[in-house]
């Protein structure tokens, strides 16, 4: 069993951090939310709609950890393809594509095939496709993975901007520093079980430690005494 008795609710408009060590069950939880795998028991809902219904994904955007897109398409073609899936009218799609490519700084490379993109560029095109439908909920799996410090800062800025617009962001990350900065609430999962959940400030006050120490305590790591 990968995830056991997980009960979570995310409120509209908040930035929610989903933390845990490798193999804790974070990605599996996202897979269930996105309908890639079925839960063995229980149910998951997005905006009150069962995740098994495709319409549940109409208002969400998803950025996977490993960003792979159709290599033979250009960034513009990829975004146009996804816009068509969402049923966005052509004129509106063109406007959003222009806006998003400028936001993720890929305007100059919009006509280049994705196979020629660097890792960072692919991550940015991933972010653009996650935002194409102007989602109310953004699910990000390790959004800053593989990015340089400048890239990570830009992602944090985008998350903050989305929060200011009233969007909900649910993301997993190993970068505890940025989680502490950006998130309203966090949940820490270990070995498939939810260990702790709450507002970052409240947790820090409760455990008298920063988020990193709380995380290490929960996963049962105790540092070796210095010689």
């Amino acid at each position: 069993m990968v995830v056991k008795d997980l009960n979570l609710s995310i409120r509209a408009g908040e930035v929610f951090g989903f933390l845990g060590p490798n193999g804790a069950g974070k990605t599996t939880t996202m897979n269930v939310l996105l309908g890639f795998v079925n839960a063995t028991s229980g149910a998951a809902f997005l905006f009150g709609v069962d995740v098994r219904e495709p319409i549940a994904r109409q208002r969400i955007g998803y950025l996977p950890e490993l960003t792979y897109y159709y290599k033979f398409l250009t960034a513009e073609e990829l975004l146009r393809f996804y816009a068509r899936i969402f049923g966005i009218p052509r004129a509106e799609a063109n406007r959003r594509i222009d806006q998003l490519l400028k936001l993720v700084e890929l305007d100059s490379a919009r006509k280049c095939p994705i196979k020629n993109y660097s890792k960072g560029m692919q991550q940015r095109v991933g972010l653009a496709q996650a935002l194409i439908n102007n989602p109310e909920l953004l699910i990000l799996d390790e959004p800053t993975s593989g990015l340089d410090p400048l890239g990570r800062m830009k992602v944090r800025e985008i998350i903050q901007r989305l929060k200011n617009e009233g969007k909900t962001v649910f993301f997993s990350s190993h970068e505890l520093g940025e989680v502490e900065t950006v998130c309203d609430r966090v949940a820490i999962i270990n070995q498939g079980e939810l260990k702790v959940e709450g507002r970052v400030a409240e947790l820090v006050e409760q455990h008298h430690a920063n988020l990193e120490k709380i995380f290490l305590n929960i996963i049962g790591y105790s540092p070796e005494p210095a010689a």
Partner: protein
Amino acid sequence: MNTVFALAGVVVKELYRRKDFYVLFVLTAVITLVMGSVSFFNDAKIVRYVKEIALLLIWVSALVIAIGTTARQIPAERESRTIFPLLAKPVTRAQVILGKFAGCWLACGLALIVFYLFFGLVSASREHDWPLLNYVQALWLQWMMLGIVIAFVLLGSVVFAAPSSNATIAFVVVIGILLLGSHLNQVALQQPEPLRTIVYALYFLIPHLEWYDVRDFVIYEQHLPGWTDCGLATLYAAVYAALLLWATWLVFRRKPLSV
């Protein structure tokens, strides 16, 4: 339907941005033109052997494009992980299957048009005649047959892990049906029971792809099958393809996809 056509469009783009189609077309064209340039007994009016070779190459190429393109669709999506951002959109697995089918089938149709145009030009240059309706009907029937083949390969792609094994099995089955499909009833009657019943059952179950091979009518300038028969064959192809696509959906909908 918008989603299905969007997916189909991506498949078509993939076909004409890969090299397969161009390589096959150039090979077909070169072999046909080389064979056409050979003089047999100083007679410039001989044309049927060129038509025969060209149509054989068109059939082989179309099958290679259909099976090769289709066999890698869903496995490639999973392997390259492009299926995850796709299914994270409001797209059902049924739409993915339909979109892939539509894309592969449409791509094959476009390829066939190019091939048959070339074929028409080559035969017209020799015969000074262009039986357009015959070529259209032959193209249509071949396209219908490819619909069944594509649906079959799509089913194989969700059953078999490797595209190569799926493609090999598909080639063997398709060529087997084309060569032997119409004779299975004859073979069955020569067998003892219970083999006779098994072979006869197989004869009724397999899609009769050999109906769609009307090359002989084109080569030997015979009257092609009537439009009613053509319509019935089209209906048969549609039903069979629908059956195979339904089976594909039944298998695919339960498959877990882990990022």
